[in-house]
């Protein structure tokens, strides 16, 4: 597993364990957020959603989306072109 080598997101001790993963790679704004929103509808408060994307806008949009929805933005990291972000449902 590559997880051992993966750097934790900024300001975090470890990579969060996601309850659900949304793959929005190659999709343009606002599709990554729309996909995340769709996934969140089926999740419970406190569960962790991981969003994978290649749209650099995710850096701004994921935290902004969390603020407008009352979720907690839990961090983000990038590897090459890919971004991974984590959100805790309803804990904003």
């Amino acid at each position, binding site marked *: 597993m590559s997880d051992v080598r993966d750097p934790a997101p900024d300001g975090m001790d470890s990579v969060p364990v996601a309850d659900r993963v949304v793959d929005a790679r*190659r*999709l*343009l*704004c*606002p599709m990554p*957020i729309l996909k995340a929103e769709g996934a969140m509808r089926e999740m419970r408060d406190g569960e962790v959603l991981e969003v994978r994307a290649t749209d650099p806008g995710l*850096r701004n949009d994921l935290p902004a989306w969390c*603020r407008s*929805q009352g979720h907690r933005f839990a961090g983000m990291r990038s590897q090459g072109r890919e971004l991974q972000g984590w959100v805790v449902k309803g804990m904003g």
Partner: protein
Amino acid sequence: MSTLTDPLSPTFEPRPEPLRALGLLSGGLDSTLAARLLMDQGIEVECVNFHTGFCIQSHTGALRNPKPGAAPPRHDALHAAGNLGIRLHLVDIAEDYVRIVTDPKHGYGKNLNPCLDCKIFMVQKAHEMMRSMGFHFLFTGEVLGQRPMSQRRDTFPVIDRESGAGGWLLRPLTALRMPLTEPEKRGWVDRSRLMGFSGRNRKPQMALARQLGIVDYPSPAGGCCFLTDENYARKLRDLWSYRGERSYAMEDILLLKAGRHLRPAPHYKLVIGRDDSENHFLSGFVEGRILIKARDIPGPLTLVEGTPSPDDLIFACRLAARFGRARELPEVAMVVEVQGSREIHQVIPLPAHEMDEAWYV
């Protein structure tokens, strides 16, 4: 001033608490101001932003040549909602939106922009949300005379009527120039604290923004919809004309946003990436299309759509070879992938004098 908030007025009705309004938020200055004016009256505001597939966000621009260290693009409505501290509902209407674009009752503007049908459709969707989610009225940032097609004295009543919203749609920025809406008649909204803006001059909005301490808003210049863009509209018309019908899938309209589009013959088209990030974007659309790229030499990723013959494909390889390092070579090996099968063609890159400007869509 606001006699209509007078409890003795015949239309007065006690204000529900909380009074809840749902707004259409693009994230531009007007819709942001409209939301703020109502929030400042103690109204509980939430907003909706609709995804049609045609919205121009800075993300689309960032598709090409993202500069290292440049600020990442952002979704204007999300950002505005965050600044306002309100909840934003992002709603995907792309599927239903097809009929608005292909068959607008009220016709198109200068390009393929069905602005009036679009606004009616969005207000109608918002009105459905208003009823199902317990909002008391709707609002938009529309300003009389600001847009030639949809924001006119004669089109506002059409929007109100055909959307089903009737008198429940308030336009806070231009309200003083409009008949009273239901929430005003009931004394729920203080009309004296609404505006009477009109026309294309945006100075009053900018002054109001300063007054309210709103400083971080996107530049008003430029459109927000690909359908008002001449180049984009031409590509969409080309797609329709060669398909023989006015229809599109989400993939089609996304692909029109990227790459050079060349149609050397009516029955096929090439989409050629212009840089690494476009190549990467195009690589997500290989399914159902033919992929061409140079073997072992840097160059663009090319997608072919349509029904090219084997000879056409050889020609497409020569054409694609022109757009990479391969054009300097006497001969080049081009890889053609069709539904998982892979062929190599040895071709001579098309010389400049054989290129035809008319191929560019």
